């Protein structure tokens, strides 16, 4: 069986750092947000600190991976995402990636406003907490679809290997990405 290179090491690191950060923030965020979980867990000051510094850590880690990694490759991928036509990725994957990138920035902006707003009324707006919550529901919806296609759906779940080991089967790649010319696996 022949394999082709699907994701570079930088891309995979970026993906898993993003995933780890997202789950940490989702878990701590839900504890802060859902009354039943708040009661069950308690320790709100600690959870709040983990959530706030976790958010800073999440964005910083993503920036660091790009800075220390294959910057040119990331830029090339970003340029590819700008055009909503099938190429190395299909349109659904591109929309998912673009929305997640925008959501991450919006999470950061609204999160910082909530954080600073607690100390300084200049940063306090009645809509911030609402926008932060709606972002969570939107991101969660994308995540459910993403997990289904990457882990459960038989036709597409081979793609997970691309994100763990970096390579996928050549015939699978041809079938799913006919307009992509994959580089061979080394």
């Amino acid at each position, binding site marked *: 069986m022949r394999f082709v290179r699907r994701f570079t090491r930088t891309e995979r690191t970026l993906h898993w750092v993003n995933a780890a950060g997202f789950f940490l923030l989702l878990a701590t965020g839900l504890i802060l947000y859902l*009354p039943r979980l708040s009661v069950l867990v308690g*320790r709100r000051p600690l959870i709040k600190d983990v959530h706030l510094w976790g958010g800073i850590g999440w964005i910083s880690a993503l920036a660091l991976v790009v800075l220390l990694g294959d910057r040119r490759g990331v830029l090339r991928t970003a340029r590819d995402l700008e055009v909503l036509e099938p190429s190395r990725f299909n349109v659904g994957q591109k929309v998912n990636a673009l929305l997640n990138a925008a959501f991450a920035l*919006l999470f950061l*902006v*609204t999160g910082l406003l909530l954080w600073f707003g607690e100390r300084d*009324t200049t940063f306090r707006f009645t*809509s911030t907490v*609402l926008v932060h919550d*709606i972002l969570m529901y939107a991101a969660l919806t994308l995540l459910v679809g993403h997990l289904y296609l990457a882990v459960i759906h038989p036709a597409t779940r081979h793609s997970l290997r691309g994100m763990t080991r970096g390579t996928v089967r050549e015939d699978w790649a041809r079938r799913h990405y006919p307009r992509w010319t994959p580089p061979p696996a080394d």
Partner: protein
Amino acid sequence: MENSSPKKYGRGLFLATLFGGVTSIAWGRPVWNRFNGALAGVEALVPLVPHGWRIYSVADMMPTFEPATWRLAIDGLVQQKLALSYEELRALPSAHQVTDFHCVTGWTVRNVHWKGVRLSEIFDRARPFPEAHALQFVSAELPYLDYLTLQQSQLKDVMLAYEMDGKPLTREHGAPLRLVIPEMYGYKGVKWLNRINLVPQAGDGYWEVLGYDRDAWVGHSNGYGA
């Protein structure tokens, strides 16, 4: 021009999402409130989703209510110090009110049914000295406390509430007793209330030490409606 280059709809989508998200900090709440009626049914279908309430606490554990040992202490500048048990508190003449609850972070819960005791019932029994001009409300969730001036505490819908929406106050809402003052933001409404000290003047409460306004009038404090 770039006639031959492919259209960058992806970039458009990214920037539009970003633009919509950032500007919604200005228009999100009014638009949401418009459609809220339609969404109320959906919310009820998802049992986990909070129905308007968010639970804030400042200590590691929310206080637990022990009916046998719980007391509401009335102390400070009073002629008669009190230590009311839960039974004694429930035996006092009760009042009922339906009021809106506003949080300083922007959310509101409409038409909350409260049942509890008016402060006048407490004053009748404790008889504050004339030099008492403020009340210090102390939570079992230390170090949370807050103050009202005597004048503020005499607004007609200020209440020591032990029931919310027809049921005894739940733990996350401050069981067994919380202060309710609908004219002010929720941080003034001390939860897990177990001590009221009559003092010469108001001081800074938990959030006020961190920069919130002492007089937390809804719509006219903390940077709103300035």
